[in-house]
């Protein structure tokens, strides 16, 4: 089980806030001012459980959201907070992270091949929508090359990955300076 260095240092209320903020970020909505008692209890139980396990809250929500989004149009709170989801997370996160790392590596390889192997212009490569490049990689490479206009186009998708999954921040650290992504 991986965890970010500071996740265990968070207080329960901070941990809870991290979970909820990440969830609403993925939903693309603002957190409602009022919520049901049942939902509040479930969030609290989840926060307590994950905190004791030393799980990175953002990583967990991102993983769970993506899992449920494969088959459900809307990912509800009771899906994210289910103990079964936590159990599945523990089982599958290792494979998921390996796949994420591989995907980033393959995408960076594509950028490298297109620019070095095929001598294509970097801007043209980053804007080529036929190439299999994710938002985070396009954003990070554009950022490093100083193409802010290109980077801004991919910022929203990149945020969801880079801010919530440490694997992205780690793999793209060479492209993202500490102050370039608001971290």
């Amino acid at each position, binding site marked *: 089980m991986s965890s970010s260095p500071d996740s265990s240092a968070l207080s329960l209320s901070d941990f809870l806030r991290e979970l909820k903020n990440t969830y609403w970020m993925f939903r693309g909505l603002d957190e409602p001012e009022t*919520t049901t008692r049942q939902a509040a209890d479930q969030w609290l139980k989840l926060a307590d459980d994950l905190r004791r396990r030393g799980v990175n809250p953002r990583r967990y929500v991102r993983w769970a959201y993506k899992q449920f989004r494969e088959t459900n149009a809307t990912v509800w709170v009771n899906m994210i907070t289910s103990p079964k989801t936590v159990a599945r997370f523990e089982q599958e996160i290792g494979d998921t992270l390996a796949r994420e790392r591989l995907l980033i590596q393959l995408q960076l390889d594509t950028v490298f091949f297109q620019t070095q192997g095929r001598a294509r212009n970097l801007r043209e490569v980053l804007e080529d929508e036929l190439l299999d490049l994710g938002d985070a990689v396009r954003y990070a490479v554009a950022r490093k090359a100083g193409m802010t206009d290109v980077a801004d186009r991919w910022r929203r998708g990149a945020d969801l990955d880079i801010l919530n999954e440490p694997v992205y921040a780690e793999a793209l650290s060479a492209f993202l300076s500490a102050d370039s992504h608001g971290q």
Partner: protein
Amino acid sequence: MDSSGNIREINSRGLLVRLLTYAIRCPSVARLAMQKVQPTYFDQATQLDFFMVWFVAQQMMLKSGTTPHPQHLNDLVINLMNGEGYTDPTLHAGVTRLINEVYTFKEDPWNESYGVELLNAFFHTVFKREATRSTQQATTRDEALEIVMRTHKQLNVDQNKPVDPFDLSETPTLSKRLPTGATYFDLITGGGTIPTECYGVLGPSGGGKTLMAIDVGCSMAERKQRVEYFSYEQPPREVRPRMFSRAGGIHIDELKNKEWDEIPGAVRDKIADASEKIKGNFIMHDRSAEGDSVADVIGVVRDSISSGHHPTMVVIDWLWPLVTRATAVRSTSRRNVTERAVLQSMMDEFKAMASEYNTCVLLLHQLSIEMAKRRASKKPQWFNSAEAGSFAWLLHYCIAIGTQDEQGFCYLVGSKSRSNAKTSFVVQCLGAYNKFRIPTNSMVYDDKRREFVDDQNLNRMPGRERSDPGSDEEDLKGGLV
């Protein structure tokens, strides 16, 4: 055969003499030759002296385990020839001259790798000759194929060589994945292909099998990895526009139903530019009208390696014509049973070929009709192959392409293998550009619209502009917020 070898065929008497010299006198090569080289591999009509000398020498070596004395060998060969009715003194003189040549050759120490190279080159030559002869002389096609395949199995020096995995005196050969450059393919296979492995792609009719093969093939060729593409369905004139579209990033409408002269100059320039980078690495073999044996594929791969171009991938597009053509000539009342037997036998041959020539094989096959008829929301299973379910079980790794929705989104499902977990994700088939792509947004199947949708248009009903994701309509579905 080592692709770095300089000798491709034994095409002169000098090389044949050198081969016989190593086979009789170099101890390590002789051990191999005793087991592998049959006297009949020498053509009795044109190489009688070689046939006779090797026949006797092999018997003597098998009996004593040592190199025979030249005079003893000469006497026995002459006696045998007399007994068989070859009494012409010029034939005897030829044998004596050959034995002298074999025994006067001096090399100390023996170059063992050169000897093995000679043996392999000899086998290559014999295989080509036998394959041609058997197809011409056999009374039935089955018989011809059987002879060809049997000869092929026999003619490989390294095939049955035992390996001590813990002997590190030579650098151990290990498997390493080689990225193809097609991200979705590399992702689902866990990082690329492993030479010596067989990969299967299952897909519904018109569902992107050929497209995937072209996409992966072009990606590899761009990276200077050689691809041998066997098209059993479409002739090159039909596949070429799709290849141009993929390689040059050109919309297929610019190329479809057009002669070369009708294509705009700017597009032709793009094609020329892309072709320059791929040329020589993506080789297409038209088998749309003929070709019914794995031996044919093996022959091409052998020739390719012999000419110094080691194929990284061999694509069979698609497998079933090969099976049905091979089965069509067999008189049988239980056709489906025979087809399955032929398929299994072919899979075995392909796996042997992949292992022997250190290349990977991509086999395209149909998804079962039951699965192909289902909606795009239903993930296919990697074992849902048509006609013979065992197809997928015989592979190292199998990928199934699901039914596409109107936008080309579909599931890609990969089987579990020793080094890779079972995985699946949604991809988009860009038919106009002959590519697959991983969508950047997470996709979900919308039952109402019967298609995959992403975050941006989640609640847009057909005919409606995008709605506010936080609308009441969504919240009434019954979940907790």
